[in-house]
């Protein structure tokens, strides 16, 4: 029992070990025997010394959708860089912004982190405050001229969230997530 438990815990750390090993090899830029063995030793030692809790239990990564997420990230990055640059050139000191509250449906540390990171990379939005417990993001948006812009930005953040949830979503908390209805319909009081 004890041995089985330990083996299972070891398997959980495999991706992290593989990633650290790969990082080591890339940084050395060679595949000599010393580099390979040394990297493996360092990766194992690190994981043994600093074991991380499971980031996302019951995660179901979907490679195709993660790919789609990355493509979206790259196009968003270009668009958002261009938007910010254009705002700086065109409006500069007379720009107008807003801080909007966006309610999230995802409820795990990893997913909320991913949504916050990607939101910052989408055009015109920048996460300023995260309320983890109530699953709220406070997003600084720019430019904003009227209520329609605010609404538009909110739905953009929720689109990001939906994309993330589809890419690495898990289990029951995403039932009905593919639906078009906004998250307000599932609002929990307080």
């Amino acid at each position: 029992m004890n041995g089985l438990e330990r083996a299972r815990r070891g398997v959980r750390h495999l991706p992290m070990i593989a990633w650290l090993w790969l990082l080591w090899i890339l940084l050395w830029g060679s595949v000599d025997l010393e580099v390979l063995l040394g990297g493996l030793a360092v990766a194992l030692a690190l994981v043994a010394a600093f074991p991380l809790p499971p980031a996302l239990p019951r995660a179901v990564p979907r490679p195709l959708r993660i790919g789609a997420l990355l493509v979206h990230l790259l196009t968003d990055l270009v668009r958002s860089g261009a938007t910010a640059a254009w705002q700086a050139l065109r409006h500069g000191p007379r720009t107008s912004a807003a801080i909007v509250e966006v309610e999230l449906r995802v409820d795990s540390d990893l997913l909320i982190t991913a949504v916050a990171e990607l939101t910052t990379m989408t055009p015109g939005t920048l996460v300023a405050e995260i309320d983890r417990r109530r699953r709220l993001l406070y997003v600084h948006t720019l430019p904003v001229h009227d209520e329609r812009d605010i609404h538009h930005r909110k739905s953009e953040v929720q689109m990001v969230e939906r994309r993330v949830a589809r890419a690495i979503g898990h289990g029951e908390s995403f039932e009905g997530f593919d639906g078009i209805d906004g998250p307000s319909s599932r609002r929990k009081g307080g």
Partner: protein
Amino acid sequence: MNALNTARDAVTAVLLPAGAAFCLLGALGLLRFPDTGSRLHAAAKAQTLGLLLVLVGTAVQMPLRHAPVLLLVALFQLLTAPVTSQIIGRAAYRAQALDHRLLLRDELAERLEREGTPAYGQEREADEEDEGR
């Protein structure tokens, strides 16, 4: 082989100036935007895009075994830039370094007021007192 080199040079010739231009625009945004919040947009987005373009433009010129290291730089930039900008934005909000007149709407302040801990109320009262004297 020659055609490949030309193509490579063309990619670099486009990406490097474009990346430099975005970095310049990011710096311009830092200068022209009025408060911390909007400056972060310039720093986090225009700058990141500029750096990525420069990195890709350089990577195509590098020998194959060094190029992945540049991609690692890009990856960690993408992972860390939003985190820093969020931390700075959060600190700026708490230190009241955001220009409130620029905000069309501030739902965080609305919530703080609802919960009885207004972010700006006290200072505003203090300002009014000063003006009254």
